[in-house]
Each structure stands twice: as structure tokens, then as C-alpha cells.
């Protein structure tokens, strides 16, 4: 019986939709029989990571936006633990050159909220989107970039709704706390103008509070859906949070006129009524206390740990890893690097199945693998957006899905992007120097360079010969080499990390 169940649970076909039970939504790990995750009962599916022999390269794939020769060399020098440690201490990595470049190329990224409010809103949105792809591709703090993407989804704010406030949120809230402590990050989002506007908290006032933020801070940001709270708690938290609003260019403020001073009960705790003489600080402290209750709630530790393990390790992470990560959360006060260290042990990573690159990740990894020289990222970023993941444009507060079934049908846009990017050769915008790969300048040389630069030397014999066959099927020209590069990056082997 169990094997038949697995047949249905894991999907008898190779259709991507059928990978559902391996995805974020899988509730069990039944059927996990091999070291690289579920083995198809149909006997047809080989795990995408099966050809990845080197644990160190697995780590580089997991904690960066894609392999480069330089990153692989660094990892080899530092070893597994040393390399992970290097990236966990993101603040210690000197990224000043990148900061200077971005401040020069995309000057709106360093404007004050006041200046942003008066600026060209379309250009601000473009510079924000440009800057995140540029940073993802070229920052030395690669693990931080992975976590910025994660937190950007976890604390999603729609650029369409909040405009320039997202520029401030990305810089001063998400990036400032992405590798810090979760409670600090949560509190920063709860006072972020972008979040308060996005979830209508800024306009919530007694006696008819708006429940939008009160619901999502529990459902999405902390406890997890229906984990330990009721409809009544949603309503009560919305009353507690009345008064949390913004003033001026998205600056947090507490407005006593909006606040409900009546008695409330939230998650079983009584919040007594306050006199109208209560100070601003006293009235706001109810919300601070409620948020602290969420921080301390075991369901928050579990929920954040599950999502982080899913992000960093596997769509369907082992419960033991989730539990261990939750224990780290409790022991360290929600220290994000410590939780990552728990998740990404060599023992955990070497048995984890590969994950499918989402489009943003894929675009960054292509720019990295190709050694792109980018003077103006806009056109290539706009092209990447067409793959289906324009950053900050997911409208709903749950963020872009971390589920393979959502992404795996979108192959065409990925192939088209690779055809586009491999042919870019404009110094003022994006330039791929094909001579990097034409060394020695013949078909075998090109494939050898692709193997070394893009795949960390782990290309299979079959894959190499497929590329050689394409290269040799036409005259050896620069155009043929670039097409071969685009195919290498479109190939199934490049889609996973």
C-alpha cells in the first residue's frame, strides 16, 4: 500500500505540476528514499543534483546567486566551514566598491525619503529595480543577497501601491536587518512606512479599525496561518495597533487620535483600558507588547524556521532541521546567521535535493556565470523581468512563491532571456565578452571554459558532448559561440541550485 500511495503522492509523470508533493506544500516526507530526496516510483526521475559531487560547490550554489570562478576559488581557499562563516558575517565583507558604483549609476538609491517624495516616481521605481538585480549579481555579500530576496518576499510590499516608500524599505528595513536578528527585522517592518501603507495600517483608526495589517503580521510574518490565533485575535490586534501610522514622507508616527484606549484581550492576555491622559509612549506600548508576544511565540520560531529551511535547503525540509532551527531561534533571540548555520550544515546540504532557480535568481546567475560587464543594468533587468518575477511587483502580501510548481512551467521565457543576454555586447549597457570563453579559441576550448566558469567543473560528459555537437554543427563564429552560451544557460543543468 505505501508504494501505491507514493505513486500518487509523488506523481507518476514528469509534468512539473506533478511535482507538487515535493514542494512547499508537501506535508510529509513519505517517499523520501534516496540521499537526494524523493525517488520516483516510476523510476524515471533522477534528482537534478545527482551529478553534483562536491559538497563545497553545493554550498556555493546555495548561498550565492550563482557560481563564478572567483567565488569557487574563494570557497576552495576557505573550506566549507570557513566559507560559510565568511558569508554569515556579511557586514565584515568589504563591499564599498559596489556601494560606490551603485550610488554613482543609480543615485536615487541614496536619496532621503523627503527627496524621494519629490522625485520622478517612475525613475525611482526603475532605479530600485535596477539596483536589486545589480547587487544580487555583483555584491560580494552573496548570502546576504539571498536573504534579502527571502525577506523581501516574507515582508512583501508592493511597489505599485507604495511607490518610493519601497526604496526606503529596501534600504533601511530589509537590507539593514537581513542578516541581523528576526525580532529587530520584524519591528523595523512594523514601523516601516512602506509596510504600514501597503497593508492599510496607516489609515486604521478607532472605532472602525482596518484589519489588514493585524491579520498579515500574524498569518504571514510571525505565527503562520491559523496557528494559534482566532478571528477575535485579529480584531483585537487591529484595535491594539490603531494609531500606528505615518506622517510626512512615510515616517512612522503614533497618532493618539486614532488609538482605541479601551480594554482588549489578545492571545489570552488582557490589555486594560487606558485613561485619556495616557502618554503617547504608553499607548503605543500596547502594540510593542503585542509584537513582542508574537516574537516570543513558539509558532513564530517554527514558522520562520520552516520558511528559512525551505528557502535555503529544500522545498520539503526535514522536520528535524526545522526543529533544530527553531531551537536556535529560541537560544539566540532569533539570530538569523545562527539559524542559517543550523540549516546549512554540510550534513544537511549534501543530502538535500536541488531547488529550481526562480527567474530573478536565474538572471543574476547568468550575469555572474557569463562574467557580464554591466555599465547600465536597466535593459537587461527589464528583459529579465519578462521571465515572470519583476521584483516588488507581486501584489499579494505573501510574496513570490517558493514552490517549484509555480515556476517550472515557465521555460520559454527563460530560454528567450538567455538568447538575449548571451548576445549582449554593448559596452554602455551590458557586455558579454565572448573571448573569455574562446580560450583556446575552438569548440573544445569554449566548452571547457563553460565547464569551468559556469558549472564549477561539474558538467557531465553527456552535457559537454551536447554542447560540442551544437557548436560543431555550424561554422565556428562568434555568433555560434554566443548561441552555445545561451544554450548552456538554458539547459536543464543550469536551472537548479
Amino acid at each position, binding site marked *: 500500500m505505501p508504494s501505491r500511495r507514493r505513486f500518487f503522492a509523488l506523481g507518476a509523470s514528469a509534468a512539473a505540476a506533478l511535482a507538487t508533493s515535493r514542494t512547499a506544500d508537501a506535508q510529509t516526507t513519505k517517499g523520501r528514499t534516496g540521499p537526494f530526496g524523493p525517488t520516483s516510483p516510476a523510476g524515471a526521475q533522477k534528482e537534478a543534483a545527482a551529478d553534483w559531487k562536491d559538497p563545497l560547490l553545493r554550498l556555493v550554489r546555495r548561498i550565492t546567486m550563482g557560481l563564478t570562478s572567483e567565488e569557487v576559488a574563494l570557497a576552495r581557499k576557505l573550506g566549507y566551514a570557513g566559507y560559510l562563516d565568511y558569508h554569515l558575517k556579511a557586514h565584515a565583507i568589504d563591499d564599498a566598491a559596489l556601494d560606490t558604483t551603485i550610488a554613482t549609476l543609480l543615485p536615487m538609491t541614496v536619496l532621503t525619503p523627503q527627496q524621494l517624495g519629490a522625485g520622478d516616481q517612475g525613475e525611482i521605481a526603475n532605479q530600485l529595480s535596477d539596483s536589486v538585480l545589480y547587487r544580487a549579481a555583483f555584491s560580494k555579500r552573496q548570502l546576504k543577497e539571498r536573504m534579502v530576496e527571502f525577506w523581501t518576499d516574507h515582508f512583501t510590499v508592493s511597489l505599485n501601491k507604495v511607490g518610493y516608500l519601497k526604496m526606503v524599505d529596501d534600504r533601511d528595513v530589509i537590507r539593514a536587518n537581513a542578516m541581523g536578528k528576526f525580532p529587530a527585522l520584524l519591528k523595523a517592518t512594523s514601523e516601516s512606512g512602506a509596510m504600514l501603507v501597503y497593508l492599510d495600517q496607516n489609515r486604521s483608526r478607532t472605532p472602525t479599525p482596518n484589519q*489588514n495589517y493585524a491579520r498579515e503580521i500574524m498569518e504571514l510574518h510571525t505565527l503562520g496561518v491559523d496557528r494559534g490565533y482566532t478571528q477575535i485575535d485579529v480584531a483585537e490586534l487591529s484595535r491594539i495597533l490603531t494609531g500606528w501610522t505615518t506622517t510626512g514622507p512615510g515616517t512612522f508616527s503614533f497618532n493618539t487620535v486614532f488609538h482605541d484606549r479601551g480594554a482588549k484581550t489578545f492571545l489570552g492576555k488582557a490589555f486594560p483600558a487606558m485613561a485619556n491622559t495616557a502618554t503617547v509612549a504608553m499607548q503605543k506600548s500596547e502594540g510593542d507588547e503585542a509584537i513582542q508576544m508574537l516574537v516570543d511565540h513558539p509558532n513564530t520560531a517554527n514558522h520562520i524556521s520552516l520558511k528559512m529551511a525551505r528557502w535555503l535547503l529544500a522545498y520539503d525540509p526535514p522536520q528535524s532541521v526545522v526543529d533544530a532551527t527553531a531551537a536556535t531561534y529560541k537560544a539566540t533571540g532569533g539570530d538569523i546567521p545562527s539559524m542559517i548555520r543550523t540549516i546549512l550544515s554540510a550534513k544537511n546540504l549534501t543530502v538535500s535535493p536541488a531547488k529550481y532557480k526562480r527567474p530573478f535568481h536565474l538572471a543574476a546567475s547568468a550575469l555572474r556565470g557569463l562574467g557580464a560587464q554591466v555599465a547600465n543594468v536597466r535593459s537587461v533587468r527589464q528583459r529579465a523581468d519578462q521571465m515572470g518575477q519583476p521584483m516588488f511587483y507581486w501584489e499579494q502580501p505573501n510574496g513570490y512563491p517558493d514552490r517549484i510548481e509555480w515556476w517550472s512551467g515557465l521555460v520559454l521565457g527563460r530560454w528567450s532571456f538567455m*538568447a538575449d543576454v548571451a*548576445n549582449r555586447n554593448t559596452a554602455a549597457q551590458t557586455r558579454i565578452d565572448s573571448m573569455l570563453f574562446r580560450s583556446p579559441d575552438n569548440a573544445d576550448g569554449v566548452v571547457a571554459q563553460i565547464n569551468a566558469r559556469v558549472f564549477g567543473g561539474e558538467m557531465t560528459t553527456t552535457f559537454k558532448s551536447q554542447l560540442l555537437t551544437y557548436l560543431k554543427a555550424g561554422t565556428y563564429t562568434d555568433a555560434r559561440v554566443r548561441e552555445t552560451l545561451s544554450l548552456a544557460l538554458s539547459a536543464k543543468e543550469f536551472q537548479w541550485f
Partner: protein
Amino acid sequence: MTDEHFDAGCTEYHSLARRDFLMSATGFGIAAFLPTWLPSVVLAQSATSRDIIISVFLSGGVDGMSIVAPFGDPDYYTGRPSLAIPRPDAAGTGPKLTALDNFFGFSPGMTPLMPAYTAGDLLVAHATGSVNTSRSHFDAQRYMEVGKPADPSVTSGWLGRHLATSTPMRSTAPLRALGLTTGLPRTLSGAPKTLPVPNPANAAIGGSNATSVARSAWLAGNYAAATDPVSANALDTTNTLSLLQSINFAGYRTANGAVYPTTSFGNALRSAAALIKADVGVEAIHAFNGGWDTHATQGPVARGVVVGGVTSSGYMHDKMMDLSGTLAAFYADVVQGNTPYGVTVVVVSEFGRNARENGNNGTDHGRGNVAFAMGKKIAGGKVITNGWPGLARENLENGQDLRVTLDHRDILAEVVQNRLGNPNLSMVFPGFVAKMRGVTQP
């Protein structure tokens, strides 16, 4: 696959097998993969009477009481002072509802659908929705898309399972269903030969035309050798490419002078119409129409128009005009136009919104809602309910929300059985016995 002939004597046998099937229905080659021992499945057969289905999901939780307002319920007016639209028979020249019967009326933004309604081809259901009480967008939407409330083990979608338990309408079709989406909608999860195609009119591998065929062939080879779950999609894609490229979307001419709004939803259904008329074997299309999460300044009538002393932002009105204008164009172009197959459209949303407005001229997450079905063989021209629960506080769920008295799956199931010709309702809607509500015509 190797244990299909497992002991069939096990008492739990049938129920277990069936339950597991739901967790992830089979993919390509349904005839090959659908286990012969699965007892109750008789594949729905091709028949000229089978309709193509267009499934529309209004994400964000549409305020059904703004779309189809219950003007016959006085609490509609007392609970929504700044949102309620005056009765059809109200005095004066201001905005008013258009009566659908003596109780419900269309908002001004929905009137483009009146021709379909009066022709008897558009059915409205009210106080409908999921029996699942979640007011979480994501949970509510998820369980509506999978077609079984509150069961996290079911991961495939109701429409996906319909397709998995039906023979293809055209056996050679490379693409049976698509989502006009940037990702695969859960509604279609589990369907064979099904892809998200965000823009069917622009389906091509970029790069040099001279080598596109060779590159497509190379990719087919590369993914054929693959064994991961992306591969079948890749192979379907290479087949679908040539199919879509054979259709002249840009030059598509609508029937009956239909004009689609130039919105993303309008463009999506225009592409759907072109695909249907191209007669390439596509039998199900899913589209999202989002942005209905109107917590504030909802704007139930045109911008600048005053209702209840409040000047409307026009936000939801514009959304309704997009929705109704697109569906009306599709109605004229496809339902009334010449198509090789009949077409049925269904429209649902994850939940309705609070019976009473909030302090921001908006509405928070609620429960009971509207749903629509449209087609030549839909028994339309009426608003159906399973008893209007009423908007007085004591009649509301949690004192806040219109109750759900009509499981939306009744509507979908009747369409699946009678218009899509699939008798396997227990597979499409597991654990649910649908009541036929007279949604379809014989």
C-alpha cells in the same frame, strides 16, 4: 508504477487509492498512467457536446455586495453608508443599481454584462463560496483552487483533475490547457499537457530566426534526457511553440464587433478567444483578475461621483468595468460567435467582504460572495441563492459576514458534469456530493 496490481482485496483499498490520486493526479499520457485498477474512473470521452471552459479567479476577495448588490435587504444600506448604491427605483439622477430581479442589482460598473444576462446566458449566484471559513487570502484561495476545503494533502487543482480524468478533446493536441499567467495556477495543477503561457501572442525563443528551430531541437534533446519535473514542461513547450506561432494573434478579428478592453485581463481573454477559434485542441484556460482587496477607498461608482456623501475614488468601478467589459466582449465574440465548440465561463473569488464597511470607506475580509457562470448552455438570466441569509447582525457569520449558504462547488460540479461531460465528480471534487442547482441547460 510497478505495483499497480497490488492486492485488491484490502478493505481500505479503494478509498486509499482514490485519496492518493487526488494528491497529485497523473500527468502526460493519461491513458498510460492512470491506473487501470482505479475503480470509479471512466474517462470522460470526447464529444461534440463538450464545452471548452474558461475559469476566472478574482483574486483579493471581491466585494460581491458591490458587484451584485442586495438592494432588497435594508441592512445593505444601513451597514454601508458610503458604499451602498441607491436602488434601481431611486429618485434623482445619481448612480443607481440596474435590477436583475426584485432583490439584486448590478452596480453601474457591471452593466456591460446586461445583454448576456437578459439573453439568459449569464447566471449569477449569491451568498456562495467555500464552506472553509478561512479569511486568509491564501488559504481561502488555495482551498478553492484545489476544490476541497481545509485538506492540505490535496495539492492538485479541481480543473487539473477534470483534465486528468478526461480524454483529450483532440488526441494530438500538444497543449490541452493553459494559464494566462506567469506561473502555473493551482486550479490547473495536475493537468496533463498544461502550461502557464503569460502571453500566447508572443511565444518564441529569442535570438536568431535562422537557428531557432535548431536551438529548439537542441533544447528538446537536452531536456528529454532530463529526469527532473521540469522536463515534461520543456518538451511540451517546444511542441507548443510551433503551435502558438502558427496562430496570428495580432491579426485576430473578433466577431460581432466585440472590443476587448486593452487591459491585461482584456488582452488575456482576447488571446483565449483566438486560441479557441484556432481550434488547436485547447480545452481549458485559466486566468486571474486581481486587485480586489479593497480595504480602503473602495470606490464603488465612477471616480468623482458621490455616493452616501463620499466622492468615489472609482477604483473598484474601474475594476468592474474591466471585468464586465472583458466578459461582455468575450460573450459577443465567442459565446455568440461561431466557434467549433461550446464555451462555458466560470468566475469565482476566494471570499467576499464584510457586510459592513470599515472606517476607511473600504471593506475587510469576509465570507459569502457572488459567482458567475456564462455560456449558451448555462441556465442564466437569474440570480440563484440557497436562501438569502440576510445582513442583519444576528444573521451574519461572526456578526460580520454574509453567510455562505451555497457551496460554490455545486455550480462548478454541475458545469463539469453537464457541460464538460465528465462524470467523475468524486475525483474532481473529492469528498463532496454536489447538488444540481439548475445551473446548466440540458
